[in-house]
């Protein structure tokens, strides 16, 4: 009797008592959900392999007949693909460095000192993440134009740093909080200054966190579209999101090339995301809940 009820009641917990039929049902549901999650991307791969003559077809198979790498060749040798990747790389790597340099020490101050205005500062940093990016678009655009930074990498990097700096401070502060204070106190007893303790103990211990933080800033800047759309109008400055959008303006001719480009950008991005997602999640939840 007890066993029976525990089986019935265990639906919402990680119980062990699933009957084979129920297990099968769960697998079926999860397989279906996985197909829905993955299929659109597999389609992109399939279309990227289609030869030009078969680009427009109602074929749903995942490996087209006469699969060819023609689209990849066109993309790399006849489109500005390498330029787009280069531009994106310059912008996002510089944004990462700016973000880390400015936030690493600020986050330390937030983590270790109880100065007046600390709590308000933290709340403020969180609030900036809620500002609609479209709201700061106009003032930043006007500022960039006035500083004569329109159509430059510098303007783009400034625009991307808007989000990167507060986000990095918030994330790093959460990590510093987990480093025991005793480590620095021991160094202070040994005659080191607070600043030395920070550079010689905290920074080396935080290398993984700094890396993760840089990775997130990188991924955000790397895929950013709206700011780039406004700040860049010269084709040799386009980042890849802009370039991709332009590619698709001519739907029928460029579908295959666009798909090839998507595969080349999305696969590394997805691997990077899978690799780093567990830190992102703890940063989003823990960092957000902890005071």
């Amino acid at each position, binding site marked *: 009797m007890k066993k029976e009820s525990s089986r019935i009641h265990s639906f919402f917990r990680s119980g062990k008592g699933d009957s084979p039929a129920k297990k099968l049902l769960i697998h079926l549901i999860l397989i279906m959900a996985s197909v829905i999650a993955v*299929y659109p991307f597999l389609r992109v791969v399939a279309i990227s392999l289609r030869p030009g003559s078969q680009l427009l077809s109602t074929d749903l198979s995942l490996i087209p007949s006469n699969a060819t790498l023609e689209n990849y060749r066109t993309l790399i040798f006849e489109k500005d693909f390498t330029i787009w990747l280069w531009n994106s790389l310059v912008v996002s790597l510089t944004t990462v460095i700016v973000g880390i340099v400015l936030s690493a020490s600020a986050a330390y101050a937030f983590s270790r000192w109880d100065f007046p205005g600390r709590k308000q500062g933290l709340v403020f940093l969180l609030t900036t993440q809620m500002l609609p990016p479209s709201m700061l678009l106009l003032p930043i655009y006007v500022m960039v*134009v006035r500083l004569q930074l329109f159509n430059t990498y510098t303007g783009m990097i400034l625009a991307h740093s808007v989000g990167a700096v507060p986000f990095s401070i918030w994330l790093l502060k959460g990590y510093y909080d987990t480093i025991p204070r005793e480590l620095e106190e021991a160094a202070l007893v040994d005659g080191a200054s607070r600043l030395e303790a920070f550079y010689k103990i905290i920074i080396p211990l935080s290398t993984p966190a700094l890396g993760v933080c840089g990775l997130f800033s990188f991924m955000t800047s790397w895929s950013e579209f*709206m700011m780039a759309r406004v700040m860049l109008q010269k084709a040799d400055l386009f980042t890849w999101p802009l370039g991709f959008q332009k590619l698709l303006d001519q739907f029928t001719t460029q579908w295959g090339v666009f798909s090839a480009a998507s595969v080349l950008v999305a696969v590394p991005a997805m691997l990077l995301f899978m690799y780093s997602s567990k830190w992102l999640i703890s940063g989003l939840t823990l960092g957000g809940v902890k005071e």
Partner: protein
Amino acid sequence: MIPLTWEIASRGLTEAGRILVMLAVGVAVIEALAYLILHKWLKLKNALPFMLMLPAFIAVVALVIYPFLFNLQLAFSNMSMYRFKEFSVGLSYGIQNFLDVFRAPVLQNVTFAQLLLRTVVWTAVNVFFHVLGGLFLAILLNRPLRGKAIYRTLLTIPWAIPQVIAALAWKNEFHYQYGFINVLLQKLGFAPVQWLSDPKWAFVAVIIVNIWLGIPFMMVIILGGLQSISPDYYDAAQIDGASGFQQFRAITMPLLKPVLTPAIILGVVWTFNNFNVIYLITKGGPMEGTDILVTSLYKAVFEFYRYGFGAAYSTVILIILLIFTWIYLKVTKGMGEVADA
């Protein structure tokens, strides 16, 4: 085609190098000044933390606070394409801009009230399905199961793909003749749908895409929450004879709340502010039929060049977002107190 020549490559490196040098010099100057003023002159006890924060503080002021205030100033100006350099600021311009938000179509056809309603529908429908789908999948994944890690990885893919790529790829798939959705519908014996040329269906299309994109985030967050609930609670509930649904309501939901509340706020803010999905798939069209507040804001500013108006409009949008969040926090907190009592 523009080849990636050494000239272009070195231009990028030079600009990046210049920024980094300026950053280093800037930080050094700021720190030196701060050291002299805060430590030597004012002899502040907290001089060091202030010095550690100062460069980031100045950056935040320059990149967030100043643009924000500048935006408010622009809301009270007559700035437009023809008055980009020489615009004037005055209360009457501000009143005019703010009134314009409410009294005429924001762009050409659709009024503010309609856009607001559509944004609320867009946000509510999306977040509802994100939470529902995420909760459902997370509950399934929280059970002992073979191949759990594989399912989890596959199910996270929509979140892992760069949003721009996902949105553009979906745009192709809504093509009337060659997109897989219509091909599939026809194979199943349904009539193909005019996805992107009929405003109603276009709105359905962007919602489908955004639901697809957003479920993995909620799933992962909720799964983390479920895994942190101790099984003891369920054991105790079973001894007391609680049914599965009762356990869900009395144990799972309340204990998920600390995880779910911030996740839902984030979800609402992200969805409300989501520009990419709608702009890349439909550009807000056809006939402004899929515009939400933020896409129409973008178009008012960068396609209609109504800068002063746009600044006022964005202020209104921000206020709405703040009220949204505030109400949500109030309501959920209120519910928490009821549950505690």
